[in-house]
């Protein structure tokens, strides 16, 4: 460039250039059509519970933003809860100044995510500007940068590809008299992608997943049966057919750096028909096939659900999500990856969230992988004696098969002012998670002690990460805990196959001399019919340590064998 302004970042990349427009936050999109879960209404009755348990259905919703006269729009979503599946289905320019977004999400009907519109600054006419600061124009007089609208800062960009199948497990079956029967279409396939930064509750995500497809089930049968008291016979026929149409979604487990490409159904249906001839006669059953043909010949399906989607804008172009019935298992467009962009609501003053603290600038350290079968790392009851923030994130020793989708536990957020404790609030309470179990891989399951609800045993991995940008001390502490129990809860045996409980803790630049971690170990004894007993034995006094990437990791272990209460405490001294 021979003129203009150019600003480089610390890595030498351009982050402001008068030749190029920045992308800026325009505004939040509002819900214009209430969430829907459309199903085929003339077939087998489908209660709401079946939509969850059998059809894996999400909610379709429509957002709108007006007054933005641009031909280019990038919608970002902010999940409503940790682990929520979300997929942007359609981005529609409804009028010259109005855009729509169709989206599918998991959870309850009221759990709709928030959607924010971003657009190139040059594509936004007359943006509101402050009376001071910096304005940068390109050679055509187009405003390409203003400090009034901070530019899109991309924390991370990850290429995402969805699984080539939707479900591996058997679907079950529905046969004769299946008037209220449903098979199981719940997706069990997912792909994980790991970034470098942890997901947080303030992150915004843009991606329009490419993948879509469907699962289908058929059971057509012609037979004969006795009738008239066994004196005669008659022919009968039944046909059961059902499907679930799926869209690619993503979830972003908080405090992990993983992004999970999954599936969520947008449309489902089931139909059962039966006919029988008179006793002693054959029969013609074409009426069954004729009725089904109406459903599976394309656009006919939409007519059956039109009422459900009446709240969606019908405009030019059409703005009602496309729905499709499937006669066979199919997936489409799973080969072309889609790019995920991650940014943070705090960069743009959304909700007046405070600016990110230094921990955001300092990504999660590359924690030392620790692998082992039947070894467990126990989540502690934490001695909440240090100021700062607790973060949790998955700790996966088999990255190609990350069983763990999020961490569990009770964590406190302490606030300090100039080193003086102000308050402590519970930020996360224990929850159950059910990652997939695959015997050929190391699996991680977590037992979580919930200080409010008692003891919850689940599966997963727990990592506690502790970092404190203290105003007077600059120490950081990362503690990692994992726990793995045997395959079922309660275990089938208390004498064999009982895993070790182990822990790992690490610190770096720790200004104190002693870190005290309080442990309570709990184990469900199969001989216990109710309640929970605490089982601990063989507390190891040996401590091994690793030093990796500036962090010293300590490891200890215990083994749970007998059913008596036990509580212990570890004190780890800095070396």
């Amino acid at each position, binding site marked *: 460039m021979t003129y203009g302004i150019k600003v480089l970042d610390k890595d030498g990349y351009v982050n402001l250039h008068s030749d190029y427009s*920045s992308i800026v936050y325009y505004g939040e999109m509002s819900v214009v059509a209430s969430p829907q879960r459309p199903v085929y209404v003339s077939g087998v009755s489908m209660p709401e519970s079946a939509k969850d348990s059998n059809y894996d259905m999400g909610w379709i919703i429509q957002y709108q933003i007006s007054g933005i006269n641009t031909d280019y729009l990038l919608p970002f979503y902010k999940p409503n809860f940790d682990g929520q599946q979300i997929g942007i289905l359609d981005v529609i320019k409804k009028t010259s100044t109005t855009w729509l977004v169709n989206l599918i999400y998991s959870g309850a009907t009221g759990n709709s995510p928030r959607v924010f519109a971003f657009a190139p600054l040059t594509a936004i006419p007359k943006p509101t500007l402050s009376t001071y600061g910096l304005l940068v124009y390109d050679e055509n007089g187009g405003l390409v940068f203003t400090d009034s609208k901070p530019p899109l800062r991309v924390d991370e960009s990850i290429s995402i590809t969805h699984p080539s199948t939707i479900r591996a497990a058997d679907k079950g079956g529905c046969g004769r008299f299946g008037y209220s029967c449903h098979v199981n279409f719940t997706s069990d396939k997912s792909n994980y992608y790991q970034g470098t930064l942890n997901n947080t509750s303030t992150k915004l995500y843009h991606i329009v997943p490419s993948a879509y497809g469907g699962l289908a089930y058929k059971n057509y049968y012609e037979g004969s049966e006795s009738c008239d008291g066994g004196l005669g016979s008659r022919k009968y026929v039944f046909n059961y057919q059902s499907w679930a149409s799926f869209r690619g979604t993503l979830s972003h487990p908080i405090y992990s750096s993983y992004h999970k490409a999954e599936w969520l159904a947008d449309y489902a249906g089931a139909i059962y028909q039966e006919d029988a001839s008179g006793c002693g006669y054959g029969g013609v059953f074409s009426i069954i096939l004729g009725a089904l043909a109406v459903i599976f010949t394309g656009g006919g399906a939409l007519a059956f659900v039109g009422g459900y989607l009446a709240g969606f804008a019908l405009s030019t172009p059409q703005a009602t999500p496309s729905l499709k019935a499937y006669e066979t298992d199919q997936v489409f467009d799973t080969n072309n990856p889609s790019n995920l962009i991650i940014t943070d609501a705090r960069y743009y003053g959304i909700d007046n969230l405070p600016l990110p603290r230094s921990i955001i600038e300092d990504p999660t350290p590359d924690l030392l992988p620790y692998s082992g079968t039947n070894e467990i790392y126990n989540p502690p009851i934490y001695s909440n004696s240090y100021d700062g923030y607790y973060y949790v994130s998955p700790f996966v020793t088999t990255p190609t098969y990350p069983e763990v989708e999020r961490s569990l536990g009770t964590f406190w957020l302490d606030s300090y002012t100039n080193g003086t404790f102000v308050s402590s609030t519970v930020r996360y309470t224990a929850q159950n998670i059910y990652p997939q179990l695959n015997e050929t891989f190391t699996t991680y399951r977590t037992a979580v002690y919930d200080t409010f609800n008692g003891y919850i045993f689940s599966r997963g991995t727990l990592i506690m990460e502790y970092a404190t940008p203290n105003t007077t001390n600059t120490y950081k502490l990362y503690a990692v805990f994992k726990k793995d129990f045997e395959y079922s809860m309660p275990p089938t045996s208390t004498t064999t196959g009982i895993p070790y409980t182990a822990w790992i803790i690490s610190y770096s630049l720790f200004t104190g001399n002693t870190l005290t971690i309080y442990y309570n170990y709990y184990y469900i004894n199969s001989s216990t019919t109710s309640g929970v007993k605490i089982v601990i034995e063989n507390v190891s006094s040996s401590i091994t340590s690793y030093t990796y990437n500036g962090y010293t990791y300590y490891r200890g272990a215990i083994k749970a064998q007998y059913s008596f209460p036990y509580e212990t405490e570890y004190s780890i001294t800095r070396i």
Partner: protein
Amino acid sequence: MSFGLEIDGFSFNYGCFSVIQKGSLSGTVTVTKANHPDISMWKVFFVPIGVRDTSKNELRPSWTETSTVVTMTPPTGSFTNYLYFVLGR
């Protein structure tokens, strides 16, 4: 701050992408890197405009990058209009 771009107290020293080129993907589009000598990292995003008709079994566009060009290709059977954003930093 010792360097870079700061707005209202927050550093934008990392990850700010600019729009190098944008448009509607009606055919293969190529961006020649030599025409943008200041840019050294490239990302391409596609945004389908309109409702994607899932009954048409269409595929999404794709992009490739070499040392000299960024190429965006609409696949055969693409029935939706796609915007493309070539971002760079």
